[in-house]
């Protein structure tokens, strides 16, 4: 491939004869047609259903926001904290309380409430679809087998790629945001639910059958209660996925924190960062609260006797009573629906938030890191330039300027060697499709960013992962950090690097490395950990040193996990790299961003399709011989 690059560079661009020139304009006119259909006096049945769904989603979002506003800000805090206290324990309640106080002090209360409303609607609808499907998949092997490839495929597609099609079908607004979130959040909900149901010990299920249970009795008396913790974890994951997307949804008319971030990126950096911090806090609080509730209410661990059950019921009633009382008192005393910017007494006016102070601090921090004389700048700037100069740019040139058929053959060959014949065929078709859509060069630019970022993530991930597997202390120290990194929405990763390393494609690449690393570390650690102790013991018995055991036994035996780490890593990296298009990474992500922001629908959809094709191709190249359970 390198030889072809040096011999034939720049000679063979993707030929125009192999490009479908009118694709973009066709899509534009199709979009026009769709728009006509959607706004027609008497829409046909499909569009009527779409429109009905849009109305439902919008109504739900508004209903949630109205409910939270009816509670007043005092009531909202009281209700959240008391409910979490009742079901999740005081630790989680404290975190939730801290989160609401932060939203208030940051002066982002209204945005936070909007985000919560949007997210709640999306989560509710996702679970309404995902849990029944998951229960079905948990009970029927055939259904599980048929749905798994669909779920796999849906999880490969970067969220950024379906913003565009959804906007075309549902136009911008909260409904589009809810629907994007559903597309993104339903697959994990289905998968985790199915795994939960399937994870119930077969002995219990068989016993139920042997005693003559009907299917419904088995489900409600045995499978659901025993899988309950797992079901609540699927709620937890759905919330995390939803939150992650709700932020991007700011781009397509979802109000709230995401909107502040995406707009602030261009106009008010400090505000965008502040909103980003609020999102992080919200993610952590929601994660801890739902995880604690899932743990605490697991009927297999609660050991509730009749007496305990009665007491629990009384506690729940008392909690609800207390919430109602607080809300009514707050309303009677005239508490605002939203946390106010200032409190008035008869004599003075207090500022209720530290919004302005925070913004000032963030701005000064920004000024510092962007000052060429500062210490931080002295570190970040060279790193960024080094990456760009020695990795990104050369690789991009290689991929773009090497004759297209060489790259195509090379990647297909890699897929064949690593993954086998069928993945190779799929990869070939997907790459060819990219070419036909006329975005070969742009897609190769994206691919170069993805490859560099993946290489970095995998290299760092393997080192840290092996280290953590070898040293329990390192693993213990890493765990909370990894937990937190894994709960953060994708876009949030990018924000700091826009200011830390403001060099074209670097923020996206570095952020995607950070986004992918936790998963790579986890997979490597568990892979190395799970190497059969007998093999390790045997090697040690033959006098192998620790290093020899590691290099000759553990890592080779953990190869499959490491390969899975590469596969997962590359998909996650792609998801973030394309979001980088929002902040100057160029390439496919940029086309989507422009499509969204300037209504260039044709271009945007082409880029979305290309991202989809690239995702599938990269997945097939790295999926390896055997597909293990994906994230």
């Amino acid at each position, binding site marked *: 491939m390198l030889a072809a690059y040096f011999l034939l560079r720049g000679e063979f661009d993707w030929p125009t004869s192999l490009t479908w020139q009118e694709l973009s304009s066709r899509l534009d006119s199709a979009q026009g047609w769709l728009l006509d259909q959607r706004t027609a006096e008497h829409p046909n049945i499909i569009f009527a259903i779409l429109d009905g769904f849009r109305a439902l989603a919008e109504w739900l979002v508004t209903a949630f926001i109205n409910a939270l506003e009816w509670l007043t800000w005092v009531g909202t805090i009281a209700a959240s904290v008391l409910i979490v206290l009742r079901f999740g324990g005081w630790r989680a309640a404290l975190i939730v309380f801290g989160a609401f106080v932060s939203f208030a002090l940051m002066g982002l209360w209204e945005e936070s409430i909007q985000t919560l409303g949007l997210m709640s609607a999306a989560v509710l609808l996702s679970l309404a679809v995902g849990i029944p499907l998951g229960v079905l998949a948990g009970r029927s092997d055939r259904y599980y087998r048929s749905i798994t490839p669909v779920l796999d495929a849906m999880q490969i597609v970067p969220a950024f790629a379906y913003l565009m099609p959804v906007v075309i079908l549902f136009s911008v607004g909260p409904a589009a945001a809810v629907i994007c979130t559903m597309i993104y959040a339903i697959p994990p909900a289905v998968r985790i639910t199915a795994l939960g149901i399937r994870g119930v010990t077969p002995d219990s299920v068989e016993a139920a059958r*042997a005693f*003559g249970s009907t299917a419904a009795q088995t489900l409600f008396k045995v499978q659901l209660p025993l899988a309950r913790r797992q079901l609540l974890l699927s709620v937890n994951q759905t919330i995390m996925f939803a939150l992650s997307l709700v932020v991007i949804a700011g781009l397509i008319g979802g109000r709230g924190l995401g909107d502040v971030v995406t707009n602030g990126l261009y106009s008010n950096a400090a505000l965008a960062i502040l909103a980003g911090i609020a999102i992080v806090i919200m993610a952590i609080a929601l994660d801890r609260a739902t995880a604690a509730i899932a743990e605490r209410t697991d*009927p297999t661990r609660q050991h509730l006797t009749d007496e305990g059950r009665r007491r629990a019921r009384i506690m729940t009633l008392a909690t609800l009573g207390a919430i109602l009382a607080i809300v009514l008192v707050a309303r009677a005393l005239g508490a605002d629906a939203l946390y106010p910017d200032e409190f008035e007494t008869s004599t003075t006016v207090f500022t209720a938030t530290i919004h302005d102070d925070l913004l000032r601090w963030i701005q000064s921090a920004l000024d510092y890191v962007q000052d060429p004389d500062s210490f931080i700048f002295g570190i970040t700037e060279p790193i960024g330039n080094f990456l760009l100069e020695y990795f990104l740019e050369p690789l991009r040139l290689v991929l773009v300027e090497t004759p297209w058929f060489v790259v195509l053959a090379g990647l297909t060959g890699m897929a064949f060697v690593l993954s086998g014949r069928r993945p190779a065929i799929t990869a070939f078709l997907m790459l060819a499709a990219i070419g036909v859509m006329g975005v070969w060069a742009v897609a190769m630019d994206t691919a170069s960013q993805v490859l560099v970022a993946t290489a970095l993530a995998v290299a760092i991930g393997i080192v840290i992962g092996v280290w953590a597997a070898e040293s329990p202390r390192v693993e213990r120290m890493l765990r909370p950090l990894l937990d937190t990194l894994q709960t953060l929405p994708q876009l949030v990763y990018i924000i700091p690097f826009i200011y830390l390393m403001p060099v074209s494609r670097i923020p996206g690449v570095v952020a995607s490395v950070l986004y992918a690393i936790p998963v790579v570390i986890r997979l490597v650690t568990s892979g190395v950990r799970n190497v059969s102790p007998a093999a390790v013991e045997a090697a040690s018995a033959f006098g192998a040193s620790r290093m020899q055991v590691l290099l000759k036994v553990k890592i080779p035996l953990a190869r499959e996990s490491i390969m899975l780490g590469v596969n997962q890593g590359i998909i996650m990296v792609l998801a973030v790299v394309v979001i980088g298009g929002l902040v100057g990474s160029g390439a496919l992500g940029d086309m989507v961003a422009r499509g969204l922001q300037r209504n260039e629908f044709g271009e945007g959809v082409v880029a979305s399709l290309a991202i989809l094709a690239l995702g599938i191709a990269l997945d097939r190249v790295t999926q390896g011989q055997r597909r293990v359970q994906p994230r």
Partner: protein
Amino acid sequence: MTDSDGIAAVETIEQVPAAGVSNGEPVVRAEGIWKVFGPGADKIIGTPDAELSRSDLQRKTGCVIAVRDVSLEIKPGEVFVVMGLSGSGKSTLVRTLIRLIEPTAGNITITGRDVMQADTGQLRELRRHTVSMVFQHFGLLAHRRVIDNVAFGLEIQGMPKAERLARASEVLTLVGLEDAANQFPDQLSGGMQQRVGLARAFAVDPKLMLYDEPFSALDPLIRRDMQDEVCRLQIETGKTMLFITHDLPEALRLGDRIAIMRDGAIVQLGTPEELVGSPADDYVANFVRDIPRTHVLTLRWIMRDPKPGEETGGPELDVTTKVNDAVPMAAATDGPVRAVENGRCVGIVDRLSILQAMADRPEETEPSAPGQGGRPRTPADRSSPAGGSS
């Protein structure tokens, strides 16, 4: 039998539905049961392929025979043991009886009802009221208290809560777990968990109890306790039981009759005495070779015909006495011991024949020929009838 309140209650409930079954009618009659796993499984039975060994068939058709043409009858009040190594198809067999695993072919009748023809509802009724099962890994519900676990079968039947809890606490008393009613399964030891499993199976007052290797997961000492428990419950309640195990001593301890399975088929079916005394083939012989024969065999197997004059006088023992139990009496008298059946002397046992029986253990008699260890042993006295039981 009614020596405690709990048991009295068990009995009263049992008697009502028991009225329909006549005493001699088998509780279970299974004929020609096959279970073949794999594609086109039902097309194999009846063809020459069905005669192939397991591995040959799997190579040829991709199918695995789990149960091969098994027929058995279980009489009321009997403890019927199916014994075999793992993979012999015994667990599959027991599941086909109530169609937890659908048999590929065969006829099954349980308390006079045709199981194979039963529709879903009838099958459910059978499982709810007539048959109950105890599982190797207990299969308890971790989210329910012990008493709710015991009441599970009754709950499934739709019995009102107060009634089923009352019944469950009776049964808990029966297995000695009345103090654990409010605990949860994971708070109990393995042995206690299986007592809960036993109680759950007893609670529905079934005609037939299926035990699928119930004690395999327990420690040896606990296992013995549990075997005693099953013996006691069987005597107290007179339940018909089908017991699956891979443990020969357990089979010999519990079983009125034992079926030994290998590669899905029954290789021998008989009383413990018959299995130990006259194994049908090398496979069975190999199984029973380590069993102390004098613990299982009765006098019938070692007695000789009386010489003139021996038929009268001297100590006498019933012919069904285990050889081991005859030792004290034989040691206490100088003369031979008379084996009697229905008051009539049927044979003579002297010290020599007892000593021979004790010495006649394969590993002691053939230490130099380990390769032939599987040769079937025959009773010391071949002239006596092989099957003297029932």
